[in-house]
């Protein structure tokens, strides 16, 4: 009997509370910074070419074989502007098959590929499956527009761990005792840097 009244006050209480609904197509939640949507390629603003050298490492590692990579000689290397001998020629990723496993990002020696961590990686519905096969320009587009969210590991650690000891956040392959000195910048650092400085022409 008391329970009846209690439950009525409980429902009245929730009636007074603010609804938790987010009206999705017009409002978005913030995606977490380490969100993994689909892989995209990154653009090297210093030299104005993709980081990707077309080395096929990601293509071979991809468990579902959804990538197609071809390589060509880099004209900018001949001109002496770039240190990359080879550069990517054609790059296709079939988002219809990709299972967002992050392996391609981990195996890439040039930090040329990263997981899209914005909403554009999620709202991909198309009327035709063929449109889910992205070519080089589309893959580079997000990075060129600098729309990738910078990942601030320190802030994230502060926010999510509440003082628990965390494994050091490091690029795969970099060991703790041989840290970043002289090594290529990690994707996170690079994207943070790019956010700060305008591209050098």
């Amino acid at each position, binding site marked *: *009997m008391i329970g*009846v009244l209690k*439950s*009525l006050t409980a429902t009245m209480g929730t*009636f007074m*509370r603010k*609804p938790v609904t987010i009206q999705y197509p017009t409002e978005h939640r913030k995606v977490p910074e380490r969100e993994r949507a689909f892989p995209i390629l990154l653009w090297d603003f210093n030299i104005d070419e993709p980081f990707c050298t077309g080395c096929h490492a990601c293509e071979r590692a991809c468990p579902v074989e959804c990538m197609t990579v071809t390589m060509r000689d880099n004209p900018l290397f001949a001109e002496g502007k770039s240190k990359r001998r080879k550069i990517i020629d054609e790059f296709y990723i079939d988002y219809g098959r990709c299972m967002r496993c992050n392996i391609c990002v981990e195996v890439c020696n040039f930090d040329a590929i990263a997981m899209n961590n914005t909403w554009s990686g999620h709202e991909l519905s198309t009327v035709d499956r063929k449109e889910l096969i992205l070519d080089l320009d589309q893959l580079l587009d997000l990075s060129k527009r600098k729309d990738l969210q910078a990942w601030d590991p320190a802030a994230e650690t502060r926010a999510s761990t509440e003082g628990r000891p965390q494994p050091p956040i490091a690029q795969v392959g970099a060991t703790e005792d041989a840290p970043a000195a002289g090594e290529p910048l990690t994707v996170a650092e690079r994207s943070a840097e790019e956010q700060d400085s305008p591209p050098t022409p």
Partner: protein
Amino acid sequence: MALVLWGLFGVDMNVWLDAFLRLQLIVIVMTVTVMALIYVERKFVGRIQMRLGPMRTGPYGTLQSVADAVKLLTKEDLRPATADFWLFELAPYVTFVPVFMTLLALPFMEDWGVRDLQLGLFYIVAVSGVTVIGYIMAGWASDNKYALLGAVRSAAQLISYEIPLILAVLAVSMVAGSLNLNDIILQQDTIPNALLQPLPFLILLTATLAELSRRPFDIPIGESEVVGGPWVEYSGIRWSIIFALTEYAGLWGMAVLGSLVFLGGWEFPFGTSGFWGDFDFLYQMALVFAKSSFLILTMMLISATFPRLRIDQLMAFCWKILLPFGFLQIVINGIVLMYLDSEVTRDIALFATSGALLVAMAYVTYLATRQPSREARVAAMVAARSIQ
């Protein structure tokens, strides 16, 4: 339009024309009310569940009911090949017409209903009982096991809860000494019947929920058990007649009836002679609107709070609790009204006895629904083991 309204509110007119116009008015108001109620319920229940409810059709989703109506009217009206043609096609109307007929006797304002019946209360109770026939027709004609199950369940539930409902209004009409709704309202100018008769008021609320098959009494149409009960096979306009019109018009009708009979209708707080002269009817309408809205929201809150009862709990609650206490109330009312002449002592006695009965009913329900303590259950299990 102004002329028509003028005619409705006093000027003499051909009796048939008058009836026709009043009916038209009721139909229009009912349709709008039903749409509004559907919207209000979705919003209200949404907020209770911390959702927003409909938001995308029109500003704040206000046009959602209109969109739904258009969708339902243009949907295909399916009929199973094995269904009984006439029963299947007619069942929605058989469920809806009684609900509509109850609206005809309700005085929404002073001396303004479609018809002012001398036995209005009796008429409403009698007519609303017919709805169950439509349920059974629909369930039988659909040639579907779930539909038939639902129909049988609704027959059991609706007929059972009809009796406490009748007892509740009977108790009130004893106090008022009349079955005419206008008289009953006029008699509540100082104290509404809900105060004099709290127990029948509660019984009426409960029985109304059951009569309308709303949660927690939605056993006949429980979608997780009998997938919509008698209405499994209906679609399109027939389904909307059944569901939207019958359910929500019924809700509206019963809420207005409750507000008239128990909450004093347009009479209670300020008396009939309003302050606005010729436009008193507006204020009376607002009063009835406010009271019935309160009842409707209460019922929606109850519906949104409690889970569905089991059918044995439902029947036990009706036959073992509501019914005996309803009868007790009537007997006590009889004694009080017979032997107490002075109005004050009579009112006090009515309030005291009904309140005491209410407390007693709550206590009996508590005793019946009490769970044995954890220790007792463990002891029982241990005892059962040791017997083996």
